[in-house]
C-alpha cells in the first residue's frame, strides 16, 4: 500500500514537471507582448516599407501595378517620402494614391496603422528582354530611417497575359465615309472569380461621337456590371464629324474596374465623300431664249464632300436640233468646298415652236452625277408675228377687193 502511495506522489511530481515549462512559456509570451507595447517609440523602427512583389515578369509596353504598404509601428504618426531611384532608361514609375489615383511623393501614416500606395511601372515598347532592377527609396521626414528596396524585373519578349478584364473586337478596323455610323462589336470578358463593375470610356479624335451600348439595346452606357467569369458583348457606335477628312482615326475604348483594365484599339478608316451639287446663283431654273438666237445661262457646280471630284463633264438632254454648249465644257478636278461657274450657251433652232421646253443638264463624273432641269421659254422673233398678221390682213384685203370689184352692179 505504501509503495502504491509513493507511486502516486511520483506520478504527480512527474506531471508537474512535464507541464510546468509549458504554462510558464505561455505566461512569458503574453508578458513579452505587453512588454513590446511598453517599448518606447524611439526604440521602434519609424516605419516599414512592404513591397508586395519581387522578381516580376512583364512584357514590353505593359504597365505593372503593385501595392506598396507603409507600416507605422510607433504611436506617433510618421511622414514618409517615397521616390523611385535607379529607373532603367525609358521606364516610367511612380507612386499613386489608391483611389482616386493621383501621383504622390509621400504619405503620412497614423500611429500603429498602415497605408497602401500603388507603384505603377510603365515599360517602354522597345525595351530589350532581360533582367532589370528598379530601386525604391523611402525616407521618413525626421531622417531616422532610409529604406532602399530593389525590385527585380524580368522583361520577357512578349507581353504577359494578365488575365482579369479582357476586351476584344472581332473587326477592329472599319472603313467607310463620313456620313456613315460605324458599329464595332466588342466582347468584354471578366476572367476573375468576382463580379466586377466596370467603367467604360472611349477616347476619340475631337468632333467624333462615340456611344457605347449594350448589344441589342439603344441605351448609352458608361459602366457595366459583369458577373464572375462571364462576358458581355457591347456595341460601340462611332459617328465621325459630318465633313471628316479622309484618313485613319484611332479610337480607344477602355474598361476599368479597380486594378483591372482592358482596352481595345479600334480604327476607322475614312474615305472621302464626293457630293456634287448643282444649281444657279439666283436659284432660278428658267431661261428665256429667242428661236434662232444664242442665249447664255450660268449655273454653279460645287463639291460639298471631302474628296476631290475628277473629270467632270456636262451633258444636256435637249429637244431635237437644239444646241447647248458649255464653257468650260469639262472640269478636270473640283476640290472639296470649291464652287465653279459654268456658262451654258443655248441656241434654239430657227424652227422652234414658241413655248416652254425642259432642258435637263447633267454633270457627270466617274464618282457622282447630278442633274438639274431648266425650263426654257422660247419666244419667236416678233418679225414672224408681223409677217403672219400681214398675210392674214392681205387675205382679208384681197377678199374685200374681190367683193368690191365683183359686187358692183
Amino acid at each position, binding site marked *: 500500500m505504501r509503495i502504491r502511495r509513493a507511486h502516486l506522489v511520483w506520478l504527480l511530481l512527474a506531471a508537474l514537471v512535464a507541464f510546468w515549462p509549458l504554462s510558464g512559456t505561455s505566461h512569458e509570451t503574453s508578458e513579452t507582448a505587453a512588454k513590446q507595447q511598453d517599448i518606447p517609440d524611439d526604440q521602434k523602427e519609424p516605419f516599414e516599407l512592404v513591397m508586395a512583389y519581387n522578381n516580376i515578369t512583364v512584357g514590353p509596353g505593359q504597365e505593372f501595378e503593385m501595392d506598396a504598404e507603409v507600416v507605422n509601428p510607433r504611436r506617433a504618426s510618421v511622414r514618409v517620402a517615397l521616390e523611385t531611384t535607379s529607373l532603367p532608361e525609358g521606364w516610367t514609375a511612380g507612386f499613386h494614391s489608391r483611389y482616386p489615383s493621383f501621383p504622390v511623393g509621400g504619405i503620412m501614416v497614423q500611429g500603429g496603422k498602415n497605408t497602401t500606395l500603388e507603384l505603377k511601372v510603365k515599360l517602354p515598347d522597345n525595351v530589350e528582354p532581360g533582367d532589370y532592377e528598379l530601386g525604391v527609396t523611402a525616407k521618413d521626414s525626421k531622417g531616422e530611417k532610409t529604406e532602399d528596396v530593389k525590385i527585380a524585373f524580368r522583361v520577357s519578349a512578349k507581353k504577359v497575359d494578365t488575365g482579369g478584364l479582357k476586351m476584344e473586337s472581332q473587326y477592329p478596323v472599319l472603313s467607310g465615309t463620313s456620313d456613315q455610323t460605324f458599329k464595332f462589336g466588342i466582347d468584354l470578358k471578366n476572367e476573375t472569380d468576382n463580379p466586377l463593375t466596370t467603367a467604360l470610356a472611349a477616347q476619340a479624335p475631337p468632333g467624333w461621337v462615340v456611344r457605347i451600348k449594350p448589344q441589342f439595346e439603344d441605351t448609352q452606357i458608361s459602366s457595366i456590371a459583369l458577373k464572375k467569369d462571364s462576358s458581355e458583348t457591347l456595341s460601340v457606335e462611332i459617328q465621325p464629324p459630318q465633313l471628316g477628312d479622309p484618313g485613319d482615326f484611332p479610337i480607344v475604348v477602355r474598361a476599368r474596374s479597380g486594378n483591372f483594365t482592358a482596352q481595345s484599339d479600334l480604327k476607322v478608316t475614312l474615305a472621302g465623300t464626293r457630293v456634287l451639287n448643282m444649281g444657279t446663283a439666283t436659284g432660278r431654273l428658267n431661261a428665256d431664249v429667242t428661236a434662232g438666237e444664242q442665249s447664255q445661262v450660268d449655273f454653279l457646280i460645287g463639291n460639298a464632300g471631302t474628296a476631290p471630284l475628277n473629270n467632270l463633264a456636262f451633258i444636256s438632254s435637249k*429637244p431635237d436640233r437644239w444646241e447647248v454648249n458649255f464653257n468650260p465644257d469639262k472640269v478636270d478636278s473640283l476640290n472639296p468646298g470649291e464652287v465653279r461657274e459654268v456658262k451654258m450657251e443655248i441656241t434654239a433652232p430657227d424652227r422652234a*415652236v414658241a*413655248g416652254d421646253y425642259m432642258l435637263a443638264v447633267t454633270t457627270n463624273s466617274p464618282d457622282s452625277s447630278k442633274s438639274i432641269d431648266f425650263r426654257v421659254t422660247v419666244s*419667236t422673233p416678233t418679225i414672224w408675228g408681223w409677217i403672219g398678221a400681214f398675210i*392674214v390682213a392681205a387675205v382679208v384685203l384681197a*377678199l374685200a377687193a374681190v367683193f368690191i370689184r365683183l359686187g358692183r352692179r
Partner: protein
Amino acid sequence: MPVVFWKELQDHFSSLRFMILLALIMLPGVLAVYLSGQAIQAEVQSNPTEQVFLRLLTIESFFFSLATFLGFFGPLVGITLGFDSISGEYGRGTLSRVLSQPIYRDSLINGKFLAGLTTLAILWVSIVLVVIGLGITLIGFLPNAEELWRMLFFAIIGITYTGFWLALAMLLSMLLRRTVTAALASIAIWLFLGIFVGVLAGFVAGLIIQNPQTAEDVTRLATIETVLARMSPSLLYTESVRLLLNPVARSLVPILPEQLGQLEGLLITPLNLGQSLRLILPMFFTLVSLVAVCFGIAYIKFMRTEIRA
C-alpha cells in the same frame, strides 16, 4: 363665156347668201386654227417641228379639226352656189332672154360652172392662206416647202370635192327645174353621203360577215365596210386629206395578219410628198371623174333641153 363667167362671179360675191356662208365657214375655221395653235404651244416639247403647219389643220382641239370641218360644211357651199343656177333662171324666166343674146348655150353652162368653181377656189385658197398667216403668228416660223406643197394639194382636193357638190347641185337644178326641190334633193344627198353611207356600210358589212371571230374575219369586215363607204365622195375626201396631212399614215385599209410579216421592220417615218401623192392619186382621180360625170350629164342635158320663154 367670159361675160357669163364675170357676171356669175359678180352675182356670187354680191349675194347675201354667199356672204353668210363665208362667215359661217371662216369664223369657226379661224377659231379651230387658233385653238390648234394654242394646243401645239402647250405641248411643244413632244411635237416634231416638221409637220407643225399640217398639225394646225388636223389637231382636234375644238370638237373637230379644220380639215374635218371643211369636209363636212364645204359641200354646203358647193350646193349653195349650184342649186339655183339653172332652176333659178327658169323660175325667173330669164333663161330665154339670156340665150337670145349672142351667147352660146355651152358658154352659159360652162361659165356658170367655172364661176362657181372659181368662187370655191377663192374660198379655199383664202382659208389656207389665213391658216398659214395665223400659223406663222402663233408658231413663229415659216412653213417649209413640203408643208406648203401639202397644203396646196389639200386646197386642190378641197376644191375638187366641193366642185363635185357644185356639179351635183347644178345637175339636180337642171333635172328638177324647181329651185326648192333642187335644194332639198341636194341637201338630202349631202346628208346621205356624208352621214348615212358610213352607217349603212357598217350594217351591210355586218350582214355579209356575221359573228366575226377570227382576226381575218374582223379584217375582212373592216375592209368591206371601207370599200362600201368609199362610194361616198366625203370618205374619199376624208381619206385623202388624212394621207396628205399626216405624212406618217400609209394605209387606210386594215392589214391582214399574213401581211403583217411583210411589214416587219418597217419604221414609222413620214413618207415624202411623192409617196403620199401616189397613195391619194386613185381617190383624187375618182373625185375628178365624179365631177366630170355630174357636170357632163348636166351639160348634155342642158344642151338638149328645149328652152322656151
